[in-house]
């Protein structure tokens, strides 16, 4: 079967009911996406299917074959880290770091749809991602700062275009 992950094609030979998580980690070798609970409770395995955040530990691989899969390895571009990733470093968000790929993928999906999220919107979008190190306040701060920077960048672009 064919999977498209971060724009790259992977041909995999596993049972189609295998959760996407294990295919991404073991077949595609992209280990940034983490196993945390296996029942969709913790969000460590969050990836995006056509931009929508999903729990890859519960999603059978066959449900993803016709979709664009984006993992933590796929959100930076040629010019460098995604704003969220850069802000995450500047705000020194991660502690152990194990949940952070999932956190960033959830935050990334949130900002794609909600340019300037309120505290409540952030809570709602992020409450399916557990962090045992308790980095929640820094995650929230990071999301707000990334939202501001992205808004500024787009204003500059608009200005230039105008």
């Amino acid at each position, binding site marked *: 079967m064919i999977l498209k992950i971060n724009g790259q094609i992977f041909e995999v030979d*596993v*049972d189609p009911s*295998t*959760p996407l998580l*294990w295919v991404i*980690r*073991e*077949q595609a*070798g*992209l*280990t*940034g*996406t*983490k*196993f*945390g*609970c*296996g*029942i969709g*409770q*913790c969000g*460590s395995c969050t990836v995006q299917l056509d931009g929508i955040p999903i729990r890859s530990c519960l999603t059978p691989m066959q449900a993803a074959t016709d979709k664009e899969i984006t*993992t*933590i*390895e796929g959100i*930076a571009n040629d010019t460098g*880290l995604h704003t*969220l*990733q850069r802000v*995450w*470093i500047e705000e*020194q*968000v*991660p*502690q*152990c*770091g*194990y*949940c*952070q*790929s999932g956190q*960033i993928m959830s935050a990334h999906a949130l900002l794609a749809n909600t340019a300037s999220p309120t505290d409540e919107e*952030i*809570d*709602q979008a*992020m*409450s*399916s*991602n*557990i*962090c*045992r*190190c*308790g*980095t*929640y*306040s*820094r*995650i*929230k701060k990071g999301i707000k700062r990334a939202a501001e920077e992205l808004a500024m960048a787009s204003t500059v672009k608009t200005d230039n275009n105008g």
Partner: protein
Amino acid sequence: MGKWTRRAFITTGVLTGGALVIGIAIRPGNRANKVKDLIAGEDETVMNIWLKIAADNTITVVVPHAEMGQGTHTTLPMMLADEMDADWSKVRMMEAPGNKEYANYALGKGFILGDKEFPSFLIDTIDGLFLTITKKMSLEMTGGSSSVRFTGMFAMRVAGAAARAVLVQAAADEWQVPLNELTVKNSYISHLSSNRSEPFAHFAAKATDLSQPAKPRLKKPEEFILMGTSQPRFDIPSKVDGSAIFGMDIKLPGMKYAAIKASPVFGTKLIAVNESSIKNLPGVHKVVKLESAVAVIADGYWLAKTALDKLEIEFEENGNETVSQNDIYEKYKKDMDAAIADGDEKKDVKTGSVENVFKSSDQIVEAEYRVPYLAHATMEPMNCTALVTETGCELWVGSQNPLGFAVSVAEALDLDSENVIVHNQYLGGGFGRRVVEDVAVQAARIAKEVDYPVKLIWSREEDIRQDFYREANISRFKAALDSNGEITAWNNQFLFKHEPEEAPHIPYNVENQFIHYTESLTHVPWGYWRSVDSSMHAFFTESFIDELAHTAKKDPYQYRRGQLSNAPRFLKILDLAAEKAGWGKALPENWGRGISIHESFGTIVAQVVEVEVSEGNLKVHRVVCAADPGFAFHPDGFEAQMESGIVYGLTAALYGEITIENGAVVQSNFHDYQMLRMNENPKIETYIIKSDNFPGGGGEPSTPCIAPALANAIFDATGTRIRELPVKNHELKANARILG
């Protein structure tokens, strides 16, 4: 003094023990040579076992602690680099190899002797002693909030200062100038009057011929350049792009995967496995029977896991399969009663005579508190990759205790421990769980059955049900109050005692105290859990103090304040927390405020919590945390640890509960072992004060205070006294305050 034999070291150490300087970290002589091959690359000069200098003047600091988010891979190099006057932009870090030369004897010293002064002529002796002890104990451990306190203070700073001293000496020799005319800045040594300046690397080779001072001069706090600043952590960039490698992420050629199921009732042996259901399943390679567990090896984890789930497995019955949580509590109570009846309770603190006071006192308050078992639930489930060959074993694992893992695996496989190599990886959370080597021993035993590397991954269910638990406990109090409401006698009985030793002790001026404990054997395995005994005793003592304050009809903050005159450091921190929280200011309707204070791992922490209880719903709005760690070497990291410890402790206080039914753990995953999430996360404010006391830890000391501050706040809001955790089991109703 003559030559010391290993035996003589130990004898002398015990006789002279109880005192220590900021010790030396380098035994002058040969240890750097012993580790040269382990850590040095081409053109690198190993100065001592803690640092090397490359030809391009890059300094690499060798850190003997695991990184699990506490920032030790950054803070420890900062401590060394500062003493060395190194150019921070050219400082790198490598984690120490799992080698006995890195047995962390600075840690051993810290735990055994504390921070006491010690005559300098005995330093070498003591140093040899601790190296010996820690090697024997296989102590290359990350725990006890110890990295900065012990490794940083006793090893890193001294190593940096000693290296600087010999480099400067080498420069003075080469340039034929007096030592005191040389200056050091940014990894360069300069002689201003002759306008000469060369990088450290220029002198590195010569410097290694000089003997490093055992007790080099250390900087005074006002001379610090890096210490006390918040440098960006080395590990963070790899943790935002998915490239950080945790134990879970190891990839090896030919590697296969294993899933495992251990006996649900701890310690019962495997009797039989019916493998017929998975015979001929493609990609499934082997069923491995261990003493108390069954593992399946397959091409992928999911294959292994689904095959394992199909097996019919029979474990023995040994009597424990009938034990329930209530049985454990009943046994606890029986053993506590029996200890008192038989007069064989173990003494912890005994001053004055509580009995005499109780006889003559008018006001006596009694209460019994309880806490449940707790699992660690690190974000990364337990895992270990192992390759076993005829001659040895290699392990890839995130461990708080790599040398201990090597020793245990060597024992299990009957190998010399020199032939077990641990490649330590990032830890996806530790909290004490990754001190225990069980998963490494399992992985090694499984890999021994095959000729390829095997990655053993525990399911979350296995992780919750096969933990080493913070114990369930009962704490009974009896106190007498005088006419002013002040405590005149304090009797406290509880179960078990591990560490920190002072966890059940109180800072208040109470003349007559009897603090004692009893053992009560259960089959549930115990383990270090963030802040260990303090995780429960702070809840017990600081809740009961609150009860006494209310009995005495006094404000809980002022009540504590009035009895802290012998503990000025505590008083200062309590005042700071109260002031920053606005203690005494009016709160909205149905809100409550609670306070607590506790010292653990050398750091005093006070917290004030604000909650709202309406229609039975609890909302934790705000936590104010004041801490006195002596000195925060990395303030931003320290603040992050305070927040982290609070969220960890708050999660446990609100939700944490492991219960035993039919001898096994009932809970299995995050749906029934609930975690605090972002929408429940309170606003946390941290205030750090510098007191110039010996540095305290950061990873654990904020955890103990949160449960009592929360429970006291709930009482303030509702009049309901929480004497048993977790809070979720209580029905909370807002009503009029009991006390104005």
